[in-house]
């Protein structure tokens, strides 16, 4: 049983077709990572899964029903998204921004329930930004800010969380910090789907890897089973050696010279 499935997807922006006849089932409780060269359509696919982009044909199904046919707020209680770039409103505090993640659980006369308060406190604690709660988001460092956005997505309390390049613009220490946090969320029972640029990080953290090229899925499965020299050559056009990561035991891609 997989909750989130895309079948026969044709994805396009205006006239530019990015992908045709794309099928993808996100294994429940997996940490699925989508990788591929620039412009291969991985972010487009994630946007379609998050119902931000309407497929030209085919459809994305959540629990068997077409995701675009369900009330948007109802979907937002099941499926959260950390977009690649969001705009922090001028002068907003960390606590207020994270509280906005509660929108799908709120109504006009139910704006700030005890559940809301609890969920926000938990999200702040899980991402270790509780100390920053009263700070202005604009004044934070890049790494802190990304944790705050993640906290907002967490406050949404969705069983499925999609992340679009959550580590962009972060230095390597903060990249690892965010990915460790994602791994923790996955271990707690969530289904995660992330687009990542770094193939080695993808191999280390993913339980299910999806390799894309030119709008098509070239291979998918556990990284240790699918990542080899031949796949990397085929997907990225990069001659390389694949060795064992001395820390994690996962595949480690080393470009040839």
């Amino acid at each position: 049983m997989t909750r989130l499935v895309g079948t026969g997807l044709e994805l396009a922006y205006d006239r530019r077709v990015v992908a045709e006849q794309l099928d993808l089932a996100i294994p429940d409780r997996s940490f699925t990572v989508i990788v591929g060269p620039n412009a291969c359509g991985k972010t487009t696919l994630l946007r379609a899964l998050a119902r931000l982009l309407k497929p030209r044909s085919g459809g994305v199904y959540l629990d068997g029903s077409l995701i675009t046919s369900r009330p948007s707020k109802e979907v937002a209680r099941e499926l959260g998204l950390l977009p690649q770039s969001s705009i922090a409103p001028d002068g907003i505090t960390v606590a207020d921004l994270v509280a906005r993640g509660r929108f799908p659980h709120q109504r006009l006369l139910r704006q700030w329930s005890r559940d809301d308060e609890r969920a926000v406190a938990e999200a702040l604690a899980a991402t270790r930004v509780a100390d920053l709660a009263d700070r202005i988001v604009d004044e934070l460092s890049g790494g802190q800010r990304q944790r705050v956005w993640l906290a907002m997505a967490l406050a949404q309390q969705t069983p499925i969380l999609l992340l679009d390049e959550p580590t962009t613009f972060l230095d390597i220490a903060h990249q690892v910090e965010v990915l460790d946090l994602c791994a923790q969320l996955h271990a707690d029972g969530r289904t995660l789907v992330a687009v990542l640029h770094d193939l080695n990080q993808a191999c280390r953290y993913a339980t299910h890897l999806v390799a894309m090229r030119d709008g098509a899925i070239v291979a998918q499965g556990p990284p240790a089973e699918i990542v080899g020299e031949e796949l990397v050559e085929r997907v990225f056009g990069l001659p390389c050696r694949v060795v064992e990561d001395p820390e994690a035991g996962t595949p480690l891609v080393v470009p040839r010279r």
Partner: protein
Amino acid sequence: MTTLALRTPSDRISLRVPRRATAVCAGLLVVTFAVAVVGLTTGDYPLPLGDVLATLVGRGDPASTFIVETLRAPRVLTGVFVGAAFGVAGAIFQSVSRNPLGSPDIVGFTTGSATGALIVILALGEAAGPVGLGAVCGGVVSALAVYLLSVRNGVQGARLVLVGIGIAAMLESVNAYLITRATREDAFAAAHWLVGSLNGRGWEHVWPVAAVLVLAVPLALALARPLALLEMGDDAARALGVRVERSRAAVIFLAVALTAVATASAGPVAFVALAAPQLARRLTRSATPGLLPAGLMGALLLAASDLAAQRLLDADLPVGVLTGALGGIYLGWLLFTGRSRA
């Protein structure tokens, strides 16, 4: 905490009250009320507050009743209501365009209202009803044009502002052309209307704005939360379950209605819609669009400007001259301090 949570024991109803914004709203209400009282009691024929109250409950003498109910009250109320409508509409446009310049007087909606009003004035002569209708039609048509020209995969703030400035420039030249084709009397009436004024406003100017406020403001407040989320970008808002296009179209419709009807009552009074939301936001220090504080700030700005123009400068000075001058200073300050949210 800077907010107060009000909840029923079962959690069925829970509200979140920002303390500072609430205090600011209360303060603005009090000051606006005081300005209104000064407006009703002072002037060429000063009336003690007791006499004013007596006329309001129907016990005044004929002279003071005439002064209060026919001359002063409609003028004060038109100022307060028009200012409030401009304030709320300005806050909505600035939020939707994510730009402090995204206000109806910059992006051509009020200029369009002026075009509509000018056509009526020049074709039919000046009379409250048809001029107002012309202003509403002109505002709605120009808003529709700006919206349709700036929409491409949703509305983007910068494009809305740029398209709006372009449309405004074209409509300005249309307005100038219309005035050059008019008779001397019509041209004078048109020029006077174009400045924006509360002179000689009667109850027929009060009721339309009051009605649109009563209808539009509660709806706008109900849409304030999705509006706040839209500021974070369409993807973020949609991911949180906001029906992006629908919410945006709805708030823009409300803002256009408020702008058009307010312009119909007082003319295109400059800069209230631009300045009120920003001033209110600086007072509340809130990161939300703050529709209510912006509306109250607009009411205060316009009522106080009109009072200052009448009592301190020249009884016949149109309020638009004063708000225009103040707004110019404000705009310069805004650009100078560079607090652009674009």
